[in-house]
Structures are given as C-alpha cells and as structure tokens.
C-alpha cells in the first residue's frame, strides 16, 4: 500500500514575544489512497494545526520549522505560494467546520462550483454548470437544477455543509482534509453528512484526513486513528484497536471518559489535570504528570512511537528495554 500522503517529523513553531512555541513536534504518519485516517485529541492538541500545515494554510506567524510533507512522493511543504495554491483545490480538498466561512456569501453556490471546476479541471462553462448540478444532486440537495442559482444564506446548515463537500470534491482531489466537518451540525444531520462523505470518497478512492474530537464519528468512519496530545502523536493504529484496546495511557483515559450511551455509570472515568500549555510542555513524555504509570524514564526522555500490539504508542511502557515494561493487560486491568 503506497502512501499518498507522507508526513515525516513535522514541526510547526510559533515565534512569540516570549519565545518560540512548538505547536507540533515530530509528527509522522501516512495516508494511503482510499484510506480514511481519523485524527483525534483535545482542543489545542494540534489536530487542526496538522491539517493546516498539510494544506499550506498555517496562520502566520506559524511556520513549518522542520520535517517533510509529501503528496504522491512530491514535497509540498516548501512550495512557493502560487504552486501550492494550484495543488490546494486540485489535489487537496478542504472541508472546514463552519460552512459559512468556506462559502462566499456574494456568489451563488453554482458559480462557486463552476469556477472551481473551470480553474482546476480546465473545462468549459456549460460543462462546468452541468457538472455543478450533478454534484449538488450527488450530495443530496433536492431540486438541484433550481438550487444551483441560490446563495449560501438560502440553504440550511446541513445543506450548506453538503455544498461545501461538493465544492471540496468537485475538482476530484486525491486527498481531502476534513476539519470537524460535522461539529456544527445536529446529530441527525451529522449522520447524513458522514454517510455522504464516506460514500463519495470510497467511490473515487480519495484519501481522507478526518479531524474531529468526536470519537463516535471516527469509530464509524475511519480506517486508522491517530491520537494527538500536546502537539505529538500519542498513538496510531487501526480504528478498532485504538477504540476498543487503546495502548497509550492517554488514549486509555480518553476512551474511558466518553459517557456510554448504553448504560449509566455512577462515576465516569476521568483523567486528572489538564493538557499542558504549549509554553509549558513538560520534559520527557508530555503526558507524564497526568499518567498513572509514569516512572523516571518518562520524566527524562521523550518516547518515540513504539510497537504496542496492533498499534504504535509513544510510551516507554512498550519498550522491551524499559525496566517497567509491562504487558498491556496491566494497563487495562
């Protein structure tokens, strides 16, 4: 399985008056064509930052300070603005949380779709309009032939997010970065949007990076999951393994703190404390002050992703050389 997207040791820094903040540190992962990689974590963990770095839209003064991003073998992290702009839209589509900020309120949705396709696919206006109506039908907008000339404000929230999906996919990109695509939507609409995104990307063999804090969405959509904590990947592996048998103590705590729908528990599991600020990431493993299993090495030395059963976890518990190396049963027990 050749990777479509390769991210290697990505490092993003924010120079501030009080020194340089490291927002992402040593982030590495791959996404294959047709694969959905879910990225989860708490706010400030670096999920959206990773997405922004890939599509080349980091908010200044943030900048890529190290590492490489390759799309189909070609480096895209150091391209000049104009070349990156061509790749964005044509090769990489983006879906953001709030459809109102993605859509231009002054243009009809049809015009936005037509322009996107004309620029990136080099097709004529009539053909582009025909396809635009087709896309609106495809994403489930009723009476697409009439709605194509409506403005974004004339659509409801769920319908707008469908338009955004059509807009992201209409240039037939090979990678879609979806940042909290359903967070602003109600649960009944959310299910429609996720089903749609999944169906369309599967049909076209598009790779998807799905960023969300909603584990439920990940569990039913993603093939693999990366759990992020304090700008680093804590654990990455097949979705079923990470959800059902997380290995990193942070993933274990994160999964346990989700309120179950099928039963009432007297007391929810909680991780004590809070994620550290970027300006105060502890040495060693960033999770060590909150970790019930932390030992001396965790406070001194930063763990790399290590084989941990079916997943990889950045945790010294999984280093066979570690004095405290434990079988995973001990973590869950």
């Amino acid at each position, binding site marked *: 399985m050749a990777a479509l997207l390769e991210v290697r040791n990505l490092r993003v820094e924010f120079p501030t008056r009080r020194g340089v903040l490291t927002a992402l540190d040593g982030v590495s992962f791959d996404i294959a064509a047709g694969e959905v990689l879910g990225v989860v974590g*708490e*706010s400030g963990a670096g999920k959206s930052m990773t997405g922004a770095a890939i599509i080349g839209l980091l908010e200044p003064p943030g900048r890529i300070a190290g590492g490489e991003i390759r799309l189909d073998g070609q480096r895209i992290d150091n391209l000049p603005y104009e070349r990156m702009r061509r790749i964005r839209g044509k090769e990489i589509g983006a879906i953001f949380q709030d459809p109102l900020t993605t859509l231009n309120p002054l243009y009809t949705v049809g015009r936005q779709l037509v322009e996107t396709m004309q620029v990136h696919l080099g097709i004529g206006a009539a053909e582009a309009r025909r396809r635009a109506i087709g896309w609106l039908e495809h994403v489930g907008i009723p009476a697409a032939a009439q709605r194509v000339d409506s403005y974004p404000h004339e659509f*409801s929230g*769920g*319908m707008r997010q469908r338009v955004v999906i059509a807009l992201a996919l209409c240039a037939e990109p090979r990678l879609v970065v979806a940042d909290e695509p359903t967070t602003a939507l*109600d*649960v*009944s*609409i*959310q*299910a*429609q949007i*996720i*089903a749609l995104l999944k169906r369309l990307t599967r049909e076209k063999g598009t790779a998807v990076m799905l960023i969300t*804090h*909603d*584990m*439920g*969405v990940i*569990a*039913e959509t993603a093939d693999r999951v990366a759990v992020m904590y304090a700008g680093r990947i804590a654990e990455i592996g097949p*979705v*079923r393994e990470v*959800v*059902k048998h997380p290995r990193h103590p942070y993933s274990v*705590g*994160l999964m346990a*703190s*989700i*309120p*179950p*729908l*099928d*039963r*009432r*528990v*007297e*007391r*929810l*599991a*909680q*991780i004590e404390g*809070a*994620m550290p600020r970027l300006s105060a990431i502890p040495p060693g493993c960033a999770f060590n002050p909150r970790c019930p299993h932390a030992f001396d090495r965790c406070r001194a030395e930063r763990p790399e992703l290590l084989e941990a059963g079916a997943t990889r976890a950045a945790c010294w518990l999984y280093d066979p050389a570690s004095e405290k190396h434990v079988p995973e049963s001990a973590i869950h027990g």
Partner: protein
Amino acid sequence: MAERIVHEPTGEDFAALPVAERLPAARGAVPDAAPMVEAEDLARHFDVSRPWLQRVLAREPRRILRAVDGVSFAIPKGTTLSLVGESGCGKSTVARLVVGLYAPTRGRVLFDGQDLARARASAAQRRRMQMIFQDPYASLNPRWRVRDIIAEPIRAFGLVRDRAAQRDRVAELLTHVGLSPLDGEKYPHEFSGGQRQRISIARALSSNPEFLVCDEPTSALDVSVQAQILNLMKALQRELGLTYLFISHNLSVVRQVSDRIGVMYLGRIAELAPAETLFTAPRHPYTRALMEAIPDLEMTGRQRVPVGGEVPSPISPPPGCPFHPRCPLADARCRAERPALIPARGTEETLVACHAVEEGRDGDPATAASARALA
C-alpha cells in the same frame, strides 16, 4: 440516605426559617418529593417581524417565532430533569423561562409552589435558584478576580457578616469544586475551559441555591474534562441535595445525569420518561430516530440510520404533529391534529405526544426494546 429528612419542607416552611437554618441540612432530597419546579403549558413566542414601516410597505404579516409552545413538566426536589433536542428545539428558551430571564407568553412556572414572577420579586427566593451557562469564556467577567466573581452573589444577597467570613466562604467553595483557595487571586484567563466551568459552578453555589439550571454546561469542553465536570455535578447533587434542570443535545451525557428526560422537538415535548425507560424503550418516533442516529462507539458494525429531512422552521411549523414531515409513521391524523402528551400504552410512566403510539401503530414496544438491546 439516613440523613435525608422525611418531612417535606413547603414554601412557607422555608420562608419562615432564617437563612442559616434553611441550609444545607434542611435541604435533603426525598424521592417523590414535592416538585421544586413545575411548568404548566409554558410558551414563549418571539416577534421576529421586520420593522413596522418595512412590514407595512411590503404588506407582510407579523412573523412570530414559537420557540416554546406549550411545555409542561415537574421536577421533584433533589432530582434531575434533562431536556434534550436539536438546535432550535426550544430547550435553552425553557431554561431561561424557568429562572425568569424571559417572561412566558402563556402558561406559568411554579417555583416551590409559588408563582415564579412573585418568587423572583423576593431576594430570599431568587437566591434559591442559579444558572450555569454553556460558554465558560463568555460567562465570567474577564476584569474581575475569581474571588470577586464568586463572592458577588454572597454580597448581593448579604449572606455573610464580614469580609473575613466572605473570604472563608469563597475558599470553601473553591475547594468544593476542586480548585485551590489560592486560585481566588487569579483572573479567568489564567484558567482552562474546564477550570472556568468549575468557577461558574462555585459562583452558582455561593448563594446556597437549591435549584440549578445548567444550560449545556459541558458542550464547550473536551470529553476528558467533561467527565470531570459531570462527576463534580453529580457529587454536589448527592452532597447538597440539589435539584437540576439540565439542558443538553448529547444523549449519552444526559443518560449519565438524569432521573427523567424530556425530548423536545420544535418547541414542544415529544416524549417525557424516566431516564432508563427512555433508553431501553423509546416510544416517540423522533426519540427512536435520534438514538439510531448516534454514532456507534461499540463498533458492532451497526449502520447509523440517518433521520431524513431537517427540522422545520419554528416560524411556520407544520400543522398537526411537528414531526410528521420526517416521520415514517405519519398519516392523515398526524398531519391535521396536534398530539397531546399522554401516558403511552405499555410503558405507563412514559408520556408521549404521538398519535401512532396512542393508536398502536408503532409496533410492539417490548419487541422494539429487545431489538435495540440486541443491536
């Protein structure tokens, strides 16, 4: 349980007692206790018409948004009623009506047996109800120190004699919600979202309330922090015998905290049931659809069944049952006649507003429940 009093204090009892004696010992919760809060046919309409001149020139009728349109419930003392529903269903408007931030267009709220409008006129009664808001970034004054934020209700209601007592009380409240007394010197921006919500809770508790309205208190928080806040709220309820009205859009959160749950749709309650019953035997087609739509974390391979269509506008709600355009069971009666909230066949403690359930067109509830358990 042994500490809980058997005598049910009435409104007069509370009013007769001096503040110090009313709390906290006299605040035990008795199951089936007298209701703390009752809503009777509560409605709130908003006039969203365009300005008069424009409206007259364009010959437009008035546009009335029926945010809440006939909601009735009772919350027994010491228990939690949750209202769930999608955005625009009117749940937050109910929360504001119940504490008197909005005046009802129709119907009334009884607070401990007394009309809310009358109760709000008395500081002694106002002190007994408090509200926690969704956004802990917007609900705390950024220019005030945390100790002043928490002490404001104490000062406003004159609950302590001197500054030293006030300082002790603030320190006690901070400790109670899991913060340090030293945190009182800091400003809100120095805290994370979860810690800020703890400060909101400490402020709400500072007037020794008996009834808390919590409007999406954990929606702005990350899941691991949400667990901390929910655990704290449950512990406080056990200790202080608090009564909660809990507003949320998240069914799994609601399941963890509620005694009873009301599912709202377009300004009305579609189903009102004991928490466990709602999840094991949901009756209203909308409740069932909501549960089907929730993403499945157990990874059983169950396919989510999206609810078709969208929530109609509360400005021009459909006639009859507001859910009928999206309902698989809708027939001519559903399109014409508004269903009343009445006990459901089979699950008596469940109230459902649905003609299909009333007429037995919804299939066997026992079968439906076991099918869900198996799924």
